[in-house]
């Protein structure tokens, strides 16, 4: 920076106005008269659309207006005299409003003089009290009311109805108003009456909405592309402008030659069409102007509007440097707040570090390594801003130059701050700050416990990594976004990052009642999991799993909670989880305490020991779970879902009974004796009852399977701990897959009166309508397989169609609520400080500081006792 002092300005207001024809002409640097672009030598034609006075897009040429070269000259506007006035399509509504509300002869607004002032005063008051959008609403209302007045209060002239024949023709009763007449009427409206229409006469006149002069945008706005073949391809805007110039010239010639009125009017309409599509090629009533290939031209409005427009792609959505994207894969051995970065990426992404006296030697080491060896450096920046790339050839010389004040852009290293993100970013937890850990390989690595907040899996998901480049950005990321700050969800006040899958199964097996091992084994497991403090392990030959688990817990931790067992069997010794002074006394640890979205154990640890410690707990818990599984093995075998002879007999009986019940229902239906459900037709009642009956069968089969299955298999461990799978899944594997539902009901479509051609017509029985009464283990019949394929495809379609819908729903919601804020008086307010809610969430609680949305008063009382 020079010694110039920065100038601070405060934007008080912005005024939007219109450009007058006079102004357009004086701004313009060239008058465009010919549709030709280049002469035989390929040099831009004077007075053509690529006139060199409008700027340059060819290397070597100089702009005739400012004498600058390509990329230096910003370009200049030209103008074109229109043979006849043309209505500007974007102002149609305003013009219509003004025409309808002003007198057709004297041009005054259709409001008596004495009322004009009071209406103006009212408008000013509204904009002051309620805001500008309310003012525009009021103006709309006033204009709508004026439509009904049919006598001018000033000159007593009778008024006629004016209508708009879309897109751009004004009709006065049955007579067409030409743009010339429209313009003449608008000219008659006096300045004083304009404020009621919301027009500031100092910056805009209504007649300027009818164009007599068309501004030609600079060539730099519509550059042409030279194809490989040497041919030139012009921009869509240039094409459109060419059309306009051509038709305009023809119109001029015809008028001068005194051609018949019909021909002139046709040409005039054509010119109106071209000018309209030049501004907006998506006008509802007009066919869009097209390329020869048939694709619509992209003109001014389409350049700006919608998702692909300038605003949403280029202004709101920018591309970033210092970012990376690849496939992700799991690494349970790194911490949850770390991210594994491949070495190849680490050598491309850099962190700028400023050279000082104290770190000069440290930073020189990076330059010595160059850009091809790992921890090296890619660029060096001198205090004057000159950047140089470090290569093996120049690194010796650069090494000599380095002085305090230089900036070295060194490779990414372990411990650097990064932002890690997975789309769709629906959450604040979708973008978190991780510490870099450089690893071999080609993928970004993350701890499986953070899959939950990112909603990531490893079936080919890719994620983005960003490296903040300034101290401020790094500090902000670390304080606001690091993984440990995001553990407790602001939505429900519980852990989002918690134990998953193997970690839950492992700890479940370990803490189950009766599980024990020798002390040596215990130390083995703990040490492999990275836990080195064995002081809490009792000094005896054999130790229980609970004692091993207690090594993870801090000594002063007390907790009481319920395990998943508590619901089904509250008498079980493992159903109450009790931790006293850091020792697990009773209870088995399962998903209810270790899992995400439910685990009060984790919530309590977080509350007592803070967010940095919880990372370490998670590391120990995950490590311990994994080590237990590795030590004792964890393999699901086919016999895990075997049933005893009695059990399968019981289930067969249940199936038969259900079959009978369904038959009975169908006979009742056929005889018209079926009890009708309220608000349902007879057939719907039957369907509902059959569905209910079949679901009951599957559920009771599930319960039976759970009760009969040998409790100590790995499959049961997964189900009981809540790590994966449920009893229905068990039943599906061993005995009954169950009813396949298509759009909320049983499968009925396909053939006439039947689902598949192998069934009888009109068969309403369970098998003919998609009930699968056998398990995956025994295998499915072809028709059953087909039913499954049907529902599978249906759910696939459903998700594919629902995702974009819910995405748009979310976008609207996010935009509507983005600037709501909780004020110091706990009220929720919008950007203009209007109250939305008098007490945040109606109870004024910060959910992220609660336990599952509530405050546990009991535990607070106990903790101060």
């Amino acid at each position, binding site marked *: 920076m020079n010694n110039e002092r920065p100038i601070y300005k405060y934007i008080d207001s912005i005024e939007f106005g219109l450009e007058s024809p006079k102004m357009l002409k004086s701004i313009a640097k060239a008058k465009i008269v010919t549709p030709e672009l280049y002469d035989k030598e390929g040099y831009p034609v004077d007075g053509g659309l690529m006139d060199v006075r409008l700027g340059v897009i060819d290397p070597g040429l100089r702009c005739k207006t400012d004498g600058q070269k390509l990329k230096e000259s910003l370009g200049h506007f030209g103008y074109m005299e229109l043979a006849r006035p043309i209505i500007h399509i974007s102002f149609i509504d305003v013009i219509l409003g003004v025409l309808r509300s002003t007198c057709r002869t004297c041009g005054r607004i259709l409001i008596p003089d004495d009322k004009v002032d009071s209406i103006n005063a009212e408008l000013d008051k509204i904009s002051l009290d309620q805001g500008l959008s309310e003012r525009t609403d009021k103006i709309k209302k006033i204009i709508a009311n004026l439509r009904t007045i049919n006598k001018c209060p000033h000159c007593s002239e009778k008024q006629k109805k004016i209508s708009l024949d879309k897109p751009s023709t004004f009709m006065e009763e049955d007579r067409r108003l030409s743009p010339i007449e429209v313009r003449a009427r608008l000219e008659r409206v006096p300045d004083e009456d304009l404020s009621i229409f919301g027009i500031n006469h100092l910056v805009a006149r209504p007649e300027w909405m009818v164009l007599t002069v068309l501004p030609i945008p600079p060539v730099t706005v519509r550059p042409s592309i030279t194809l490989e073949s040497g041919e030139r391809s012009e921009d869509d805007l240039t094409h459109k402008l060419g059309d306009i110039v051509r038709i305009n010239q023809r119109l001029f010639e015809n008028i001068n030659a005194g051609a018949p009125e019909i021909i002139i009017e046709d040409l005039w309409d054509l010119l109106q069409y071209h000018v309209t599509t030049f501004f907006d090629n998506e006008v509802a009533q007009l066919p869009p102007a097209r390329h020869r290939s048939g694709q619509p031209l992209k003109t001014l409005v389409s350049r700006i509007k919608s998702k692909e427009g300038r605003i949403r792609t280029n202004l709101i959505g920018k591309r970033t440097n210092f970012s990376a994207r690849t496939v992700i894969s799991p690494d349970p051995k790194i911490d949850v707040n770390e991210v594994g970065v491949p070495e190849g990426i680490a050598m491309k992404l850099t962190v700028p570090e400023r050279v000082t006296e104290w770190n000069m030697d440290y930073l020189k080491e990076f330059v010595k390594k160059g850009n091809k060896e790992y921890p090296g450096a890619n660029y060096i920046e001198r205090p004057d801003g000159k950047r140089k790339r470090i290569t093996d050839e120049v690194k010796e010389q650069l090494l000599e130059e380095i002085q305090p004040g230089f900036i070295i852009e060194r490779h990414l290293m372990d411990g650097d701050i990064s932002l890690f993100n997975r789309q769709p970013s629906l959450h604040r937890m979708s973008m978190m700050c991780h510490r870099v850990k450089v690893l071999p390989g080609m993928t970004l690595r993350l701890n499986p416990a953070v899959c939950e907040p990112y909603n990531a899996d490893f079936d080919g998901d890719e994620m983005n990594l960003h490296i903040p480049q300034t101290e401020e950005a790094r500090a902000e990321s670390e304080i606001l976004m690091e993984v440990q700050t995001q553990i407790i969800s602001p939505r429900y006040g519980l852990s989002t990052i918690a134990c998953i899958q193997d970690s839950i199964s492992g700890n479940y097996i370990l803490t189950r009642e009766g599980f024990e091992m020798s002390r040596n084994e215990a130390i083995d497991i703990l040490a492999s999991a990275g836990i080195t403090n064995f002081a809490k392990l009792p000094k005896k030959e054999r130790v229980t799993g609970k004692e091993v688990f207690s090594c993870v817990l801090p000594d002063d931790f007390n907790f009481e909670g319920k395990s998943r067992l508590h619901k089904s069997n509250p008498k079980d010794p493992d159903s109450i989880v009790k931790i006293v002074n850091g020792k697990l006394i009773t209870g088995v640890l399962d998903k209810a305490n270790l899992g995400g979205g439910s685990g009060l154990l984790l919530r309590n640890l977080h509350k007592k020991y803070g967010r940095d410690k919880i990372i370490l707990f998670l590391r120990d818990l995950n490590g311990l779970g994994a080590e237990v599984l590795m030590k004792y093995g964890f393999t699901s075998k086919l016999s895990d879902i075997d049933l005893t002879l009695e059990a399968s007999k019981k289930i067969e009986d249940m199936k038969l009974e259900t079959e009978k019940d369904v038959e009975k229902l169908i006979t009742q239906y056929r005889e018209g004796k079926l009890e009708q459900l309220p608000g349902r037709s007879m057939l719907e009642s039957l369907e509902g009852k059959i569905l209910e009956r079949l679901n009951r069968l599957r559920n009771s089969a599930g319960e039976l399977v759970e009760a009969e299955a040998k409790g100590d298999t790995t499959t049961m461990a997964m189900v009981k701990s809540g790590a994966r799978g449920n009893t229905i899944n068990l039943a599906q594997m061993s005995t009954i897959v169950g009813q396949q539902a298509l759009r909320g009901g049983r499968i009925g479509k396909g053939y006439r009166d039947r689902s598949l051609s192998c069934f009888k017509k009109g068969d309403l029985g369970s098998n003919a309508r998609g009930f699968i009464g056998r398990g995956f283990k025994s295998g499915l019949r072809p028709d059953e397989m087909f039913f499954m394929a049907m529902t599978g495809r249906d759910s696939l379609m459903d998700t594919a169609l629902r995702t974009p819908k819910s995405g748009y729903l979310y976008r609207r919601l996010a935009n509507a609520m983005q600037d709501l804020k909780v004020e110091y008086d706990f*009220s929720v307010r919008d950007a203009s400080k209007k109250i939305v809610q008098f007490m945040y969430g109606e109870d004024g609680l910060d959910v992220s500081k609660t336990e599952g949305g509530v405050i546990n008063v009991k535990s607070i009382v106990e903790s101060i006792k």
Partner: protein
Amino acid sequence: MTEKQKNSKESKKEPVEHVLVPKHEKISEKEKKELFEFHQIEMKDLPKILITDPGIKHLSPKENDVIKITRNSSTAGKAIFYRGVVSE
């Protein structure tokens, strides 16, 4: 009186008596002042309620009155909202 007529008579009950309509009360000028003071707001910052709203018909409201609405809340048990009466 048939069952049907009885029903139609019952459904003509005032909306205010319906269980789903929360309690609406007009608050005094003093309470109004305190409310504005507490939140540091003016009339225009309040949510609005139309003067013709059936829920406040029985209060015979005037413009710029403040209506206190007590709703049942799933988080707080009872939640209090205020609305300013507007004519349009």
